[in-house]
Structures are given as structure tokens and as C-alpha cells.
């Protein structure tokens, strides 16, 4: 899969490297949910800066990652949504509220620190 998943402290960082197929997006959700449990993560960052299209399916999948990860005790922040992609996303009748977003990785990590009260590992 064209996604690099790294662990940093209590957080998982999933960095999407290129346009993904629907199957790969679904596989990413499964992978992240499994890793959240295995590494006892409290936060997940999904970096979508490499996606130049986020259609209704991918938007829904991202919301689903956030909702299901929440049920596993981890908060999710999506980072790197491009301006043109954001404009396209508001055309869909999808509830994007489960999606928490931040501008970039730094802002995303800061948002997770606020949400989770900081990573347990000293960083």
C-alpha cells in the first residue's frame, strides 16, 4: 500500500504517498485500527497532502477512520487537505463533523496533544 505508517510516541502517523484506490483506502482503515490496538495509540494523524482528489468515498472513509478510531480510544486528525480539495469536499452531502483537521503535520501533532492531554512519552 502506498501509505507509510510511523509510530511516534503514543501517536500513529499515516502518510499517504500517492493517489489511492478505494480498496487501499479501506485497507488503510483496517491497518490503522489494528495498529491503534497493538501500539495502544491515543492519537492518529492521516496526512492527505498527496491526494489531489478527495471524492465522497474517500471523505466518508476518512470520517469512518476518525469515528472507529475514537471507539478504540484514539483521536484522529487529518492534515494536509489542499485548498482546491477542500472546495470540492463541501459539494458532498457528507457529515464531515467527525473529521478533525489541521493545516500540516506540526499543527496536527499540536492538536493531538491538546485532544489527548499530551503524549505519555517525553517528546
Amino acid at each position, binding site marked *: 500500500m502506498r501509505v507509510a505508517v510511523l509510530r511516534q510516541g503514543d501517536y500513529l502517523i499515516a502518510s499517504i504517498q500517492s*493517489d*489511492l484506490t478505494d480498496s487501499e483506502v479501506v485497507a488503510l482503515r483496517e491497518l490503522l485500527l489494528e495498529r491503534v490496538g497493538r501500539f495502544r495509540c491515543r492519537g492518529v494523524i492521516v496526512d492527505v497532502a498527496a491526494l489531489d*482528489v478527495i*471524492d*465522497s*468515498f474517500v471523505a466518508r472513509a476518512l470520517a469512518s477512520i476518525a469515528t472507529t478510531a475514537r471507539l478504540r480510544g484514539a483521536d484522529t486528525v487529518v492534515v494536509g487537505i489542499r485548498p*482546491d*480539495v477542500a472546495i470540492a469536499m463541501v459539494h458532498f452531502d457528507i457529515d464531515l463533523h467527525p473529521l478533525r483537521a489541521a493545516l500540516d503535520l506540526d499543527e496536527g501533532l499540536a492538536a493531538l496533544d491538546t485532544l489527548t492531554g499530551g503524549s505519555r512519552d517525553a517528546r
Partner: protein
Amino acid sequence: MPDEVRVSIASDADLVPARAEARALATELGFTRTDATLIATAVSEIARNIVVHVGVGEIRMSPMLEDQRRGLRVVAVDEGPGIRDIEQALEHGVTSHRGLGLGLSGARRLMDDFEIRTLTPGGTTIAMTKWRVLDELERLREDRRRDVRTDDGRR
């Protein structure tokens, strides 16, 4: 510029080249990056509609060159069972059994013109176009080119 770009759709993996071709043609036609993204997103939606509801089909994209404007026309063709209730398929928030009903209404909102023709059975053709008006400079160039052509005709 190509007369027509065709992308065969048979699985979800085919959405990736469909999106890329849509963006490439939109860029070539002078659409802004935002408009190119809106077009590529709409193409992704109607291509997925084929994958989910029919299985096999084709996306055809062509440039529309008019005096005052440029357009990118996208036609999605399949030979599936057809859409029984078009109104319902386009309705706000209606989701089909597989939860993908939002695609068509989203595509309609992303584009300027949108038309569905369907036969049950027989297949569905969705045609949609995004337009952009030529800017002042492009219009002047267009006029000049036309003048030159007319002059050549007189000689």
C-alpha cells in the same frame, strides 16, 4: 489537444487513471487548479457509480471549443440495468444499499451541465460539462486568429 480521451472502467483501480486524465485535460484546456480538481472529483464519482452499480463501462472526455468559452465534456457510458428512478438517484442524501448514493448528486453540483439518459434495461449515459469563459487576452488572440484566417481566404 486530443479529440477524445477514453478510460475503460472495470474496477476501482481504474478510477485512479480516470482522475489523472481528467485533471490533465482540464489543465490543458486552461482550467484553474481548483476547477481541474472539481472536474477530476466529479469524474471519480461517476466512474465509481459504474464500478459499484454496473461493473463495466467507459469514461470519455473531450474538449469543447466555442467562441467565447472552453469546456470539458465528460460522458460516462455503461450497458447496465439502467437507473429506475433518476430523481431519487440524484436526491439529497439518498443512499443506495451500498451507501454510495451521494456520488451522482455530488457530481452534478461539481459540474455546470449535467444530464442522465437511461434505459431499463439497456444502460445509462451520463453527460456533464464544465465551462470556463475566455479571458480578455484569450478573446483578443481568438479574434486575431479568426481575422488572419479570413484574410487568407480573400487572397
